[in-house]
């Protein structure tokens, strides 16, 4: 069997045009007979048959063919022709273009829920949103009403606290004792903090160590779980119709007022004084509050909960900001708006002083809402929004180069040094990467690889290697503390906190240090 291969006629070309077949497919050809015309950019040549036999063409006319490819066989016998037929079955097909129209996210979500993408009729791309709509429709059909705790609110972008567990029975009080707790509010408020803890444990609540329930405070719920180190300020009032759960080291300042159906509060939350949670509809079946780990709630913040309010991890809800989940107004039958809707603050979003989030607001991950803005609807992730109504006008953050980060970290060492000196502490001069205060070295190195003379507090971007006793290494990007230290470490943590760098493990604030 003979092959006709497209040889290179032009040094600059990878492809040539198979312009024309001069013989029919399956025609009998003779040696030296021209069988096709091939064009490159520089030449047009006729290709001759290498021998006599039956030609089997592998390409159509008028197509570009890669040089070096076999374009036809010449079968010299019937047997060869049969063999060639088998090969010709593999005739290269045209590559389908644009046959994929569903996004990767859509495909993954469809697989997860067993949805047939082919059944979604749409001009244009099929996106995650399209699949979500199908999932939501299926869920709505399967279970009208849905889960009361979340009322169908999407938790995308929200890291719920580990205390969020609507089905758990942990910390459940005896019903009769819960009733008693409700009846004896005045008496409970008068108890000493330690006695409050004992009383709640007696009734079945799960309360950790070092829990501080402030003077005049009151906590009541059919299910109560309070983790280690939680502190509620004086005159706090917590009344939940179903459950109250709060994670370790979370603290609320004086005069907290918390009333809703279910409150799931994470760990490491820091909240100021006179925070009010509740308001109209707080006994509604959908009145669920979730606040993620390490969130900040400022003084006099007000959160109305009659529909779910989901606050993600490390969210800042600053002083006097306001969340409402419904409006109050005139009759719907006269055409006035009557709105009941959840509010969601996705992880690491920030809400400025005095901002108002209207029912149905959703603040995307890492978005910032400026002070005194009024939010209606969705603020995109990563955006900076300002105004009444709030509109995204830019980005909430920008990317930093490694060099810029390093420069900022070095500057922090200098700023910390200056602050300590102004505070009257004896500090050594700053050398290449740090200085000494109170006999402890404070230094920055881009990459920590183990060691260092103790005692020391080392700030770095990258931690590998063992941390010796007496040394604390702070991973500025991973925001983790390795090792341990004393007052100087606490002071560094407090200093970093004011630059938005909070470390785990540990609480929000380190007051009483050198700064």
């Amino acid at each position, binding site marked *: 069997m003979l092959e006709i291969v497209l040889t290179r006629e032009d040094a*600059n*070309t*990878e*492809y040539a*045009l198979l312009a024309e077949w001069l013989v029919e497919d399956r025609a009998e050809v003779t040696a030296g007979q021209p069988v096709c015309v091939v*064009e490159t*950019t*520089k030449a*047009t040549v006729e290709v001759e048959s290498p021998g006599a036999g039956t030609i089997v063409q592998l390409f159509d006319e008028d197509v*570009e063919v890669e040089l070096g490819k076999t374009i036809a066989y010449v079968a010299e016998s019937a047997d060869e022709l049969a063999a060639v037929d088998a090969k010709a079955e593999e005739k290269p097909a045209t590559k389908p*273009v*644009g046959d*994929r*129209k*569903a*996004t*990767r*996210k859509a495909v993954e979500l469809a697989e997860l829920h067993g949805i047939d993408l082919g059944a979604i009729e749409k*001009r*244009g*791309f099929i*996106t*995650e949103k399209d699949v979500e709509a199908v999932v939501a429709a299926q869920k709505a059909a399967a279970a009208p009403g849905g889960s009361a705790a979340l009322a169908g609110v999407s938790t995308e972008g929200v890291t719920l606290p580990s205390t969020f567990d609507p089905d758990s029975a942990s910390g459940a009080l005896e019903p009769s004792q819960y009733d008693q707790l409700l009846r004896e509010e005045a008496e409970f408020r008068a108890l000493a903090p330690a006695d409050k803890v004992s009383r709640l444990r007696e009734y079945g609540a799960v309360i950790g160590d070092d829990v501080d329930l402030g003077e005049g405070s009151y906590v009541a719920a059919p299910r109560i779980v309070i983790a280690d180190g939680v502190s509620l300020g004086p005159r706090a009032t917590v009344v939940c119709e179903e459950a109250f759960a709060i994670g370790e080291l979370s603290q609320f300042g004086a005069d907290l007022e918390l009333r809703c159906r279910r409150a799931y509060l994470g760990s490491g939350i820091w909240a100021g004084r006179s925070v009010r949670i509740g308001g109209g509809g707080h006994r509604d079946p959908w009145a669920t509050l979730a606040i993620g780990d390490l969130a900040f709630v400022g003084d006099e913040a007000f959160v109305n909960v009659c529909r779910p309010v989901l606050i993600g991890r490390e969210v800042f809800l600053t002083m006097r900001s306001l969340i409402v989940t419904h409006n109050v107004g005139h009759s719907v039958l006269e055409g006035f708006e009557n709105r009941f809707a959840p509010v969601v603050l996705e992880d690491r979003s920030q809400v400025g002083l005095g901002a108002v989030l209207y029912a149905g607001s959703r603040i995307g991950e890492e978005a910032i809402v400026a002070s005194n803005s009024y939010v209606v609807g969705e603020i*995109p*992730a*990563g*955006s900076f929004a300002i105004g009444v109504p709030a509109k995204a*006008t*830019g*980005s909430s953050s*920008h*990317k930093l180069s490694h060099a810029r980060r390093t420069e900022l970290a070095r500057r922090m060492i200098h700023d910390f040094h200056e602050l300590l000196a102004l505070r009257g502490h004896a500090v050594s001069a700053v050398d290449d990467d740090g200085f000494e205060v109170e006999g402890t070295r404070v230094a920055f190195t881009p990459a920590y690889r183990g060691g260092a003379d103790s005692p020391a507090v080392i700030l770095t971007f990258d931690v590998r290697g063992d941390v010796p006793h007496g040394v604390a290494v702070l991973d500025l990007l991973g925001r983790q503390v390795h090792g341990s230290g004393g007052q100087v470490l606490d002071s560094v943590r407090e200093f970093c906190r004011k630059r938005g760098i909070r470390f785990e493990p540990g609480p929000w604030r380190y007051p009483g240090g050198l700064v």
Partner: protein
Amino acid sequence: MSITAQGKRGVQVLNETLHALFAERDDVVLFGEDVLDPYGGAFKVTAGLSDAYPDRVLTTPISEASLFGVAAGMALRGRRPILEIMFGDFVALGLDQVVNGISKFREMYDDQVTVPLVVRTPMGGRRGYGPTHSQSLEKLLLGIPNIVVVAPSECHDVGALLIAAVDDERPVFFIENKLLYGRPIRRAEDGHVGELAVRESDEMYPALTFSATDFTEGAATVVTYGGMLPVALDAVTELVLEHEIFCEVVALSQLVPMELDAVLESVARTGALVTAEEGTLTGGFGAEIAARVQEAAWSDLRAPVQRVAARDGIIPSARPLEDDMLPGIEDVVSAVMALDGVRS
């Protein structure tokens, strides 16, 4: 009926359009190197033309500098010359005629004459033709006043653009990307090319705007032309499919005089701009557009304009090295991802 039918290869559309032009107008003349049959030009755009119109299709020696002058003379005397420059790289040989003559005669002679010539020439690489047969030198033409530079893409009505160029009283450079010759035409059908919605402006040399969301939202606008359009379309398709980032693409067909209404309209929706061109970066198409868009629409932009272009260097002959040199799909994807406010 449009000659630019769906699925026809670019070379076929150009060839049929030339035949139609010659049939319709007696004043059209075409000349250039190796344009006669049976060879029909290096890329076969003129195939069959000299057999049909032997008096009006002229083959010439290798003499680009003179050919521009010959074309100018014919145009001044009332003909409609089409000059084929075999590779766009050789346009540089004729630039003096363009800069100091062709572009200036009309004003110098107080509008008493026009120079309605068309220079057709292939630009672009990705064929392994090496340093002097692969360039995209449109940027050399961008700063010349009083000429028109038209660059069709495979989604434009290529035939209509060529007819408009021949009808135009101004001197027109008609830039044909080499890959356009072999690629099938992809005109919008039912307002779409593939899954992308398309709008076409109503200018003589229209801009096409593509949207991944039917113009409802967009993370960025990618502005491009000619042979970079398929690269940009593949990039925005990848951004949608892999990252759910929805962009718009504007494909200009008129590079000079630069008119950016379609770009500004798109940027008003998306708030960010990426420019994409096959020519080298410095002083190019993207630089000019970035300057104009920041001037006209500073408040619409949430991020600095990103430019995608060939590296400032010469194009190697070896294909892998050429691929490294020229901008590809991943370069456009990375440029969009690098914009502030674009997250997947």
